[in-house]
């Protein structure tokens, strides 16, 4: 039978359903001191480290083929393409030279990078 009430008006939904480990908020400030100190010393090369896996993955994707990926991946409404991800890396965090140099270092061919940057 179809519901007549609005399920999103159920007050339970506004109640906290998540927990945190004991002492999490109390210990956060001291944890942040370390992160804060480290964040001021990060070198440009260091900033690229989180993208190591992503850059390496470009090679994997290239070898498997974007076409196959597109056929197998569920398409969300706002799906991000590899090309637009490349653009975001360039626009948000790094210069294009940095991204290109980095991808070349990790074995992505110039042709593949050219395709991504079109």
């Amino acid at each position, binding site marked *: 039978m*179809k*519901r007549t009430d*609005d*399920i*999103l008006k*159920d007050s*339970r*939904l*506004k*109640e*906290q*359903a*998540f*927990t*945190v*480990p004991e002492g*999490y*908020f109390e210990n*956060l*400030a001291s*944890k*942040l001191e370390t*992160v*804060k100190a480290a*964040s001021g010393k990060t070198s440009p090369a260091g900033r690229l480290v989180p993208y190591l896996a*992503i850059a390496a*993955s470009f090679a*994997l*994707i290239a070898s498997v083929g974007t076409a196959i*990926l597109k056929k*197998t*991946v*569920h398409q*969300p*409404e*706002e*799906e*991000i393409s*590899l090309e637009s*991800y490349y653009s*975001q890396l360039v626009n*948000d965090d790094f210069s294009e030279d940095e991204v290109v140099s980095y991808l070349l270092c990790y074995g992505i061919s110039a042709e593949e990078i050219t395709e991504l940057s079109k």
Partner: protein
Amino acid sequence: MSDEQITGLIQNGDYDAAFNAIVAAWSERLYWHLRRYAGSHEDADDLLQDVLVKVWKALPTFRCDSQLFTWIYRIATNEALNFLRKNRFKAMLKAESLESLLNSHFDDDVHFNGDELQREVQKAINMLPDKQKQVFIIRYFDELPYEQISEILDTSVGSLKASYHHAYNKVKAYLETKF
């Protein structure tokens, strides 16, 4: 400490004290906000730290004529979007959707103690497109007025109302298939 007092510390260039006050006053609220985007406590913890480090780095650029609340929330929502983008990319590499990646993290999370309805509403949120997800979380759970959301997301009130309406109906329709 109030937002006005924290703003005063920033104005005086006392960034360390301002940051400590922001962490004390805002961490918990930000965490619960970010937790709705993240699949697990670990993801939410990483996300919160990223947000607070961004706040720390950006403190000298804070313009004291803007509201601290709006400024911090804007940094948090931008970081949440980045989190979703990065995870969507990771999901693509595994040939799965962002929704299923977030759901699998959520299913494995030991720090969830809600009931089935609460579990399913989180899964419905994971299903929403990024913009609708942002608006839904801020409006439904944080209960901020549209005018404030408009300042945070730099989007017109009309557009926000439309996004919220779509998101609300999607979440509701999903829940109605389950209960």
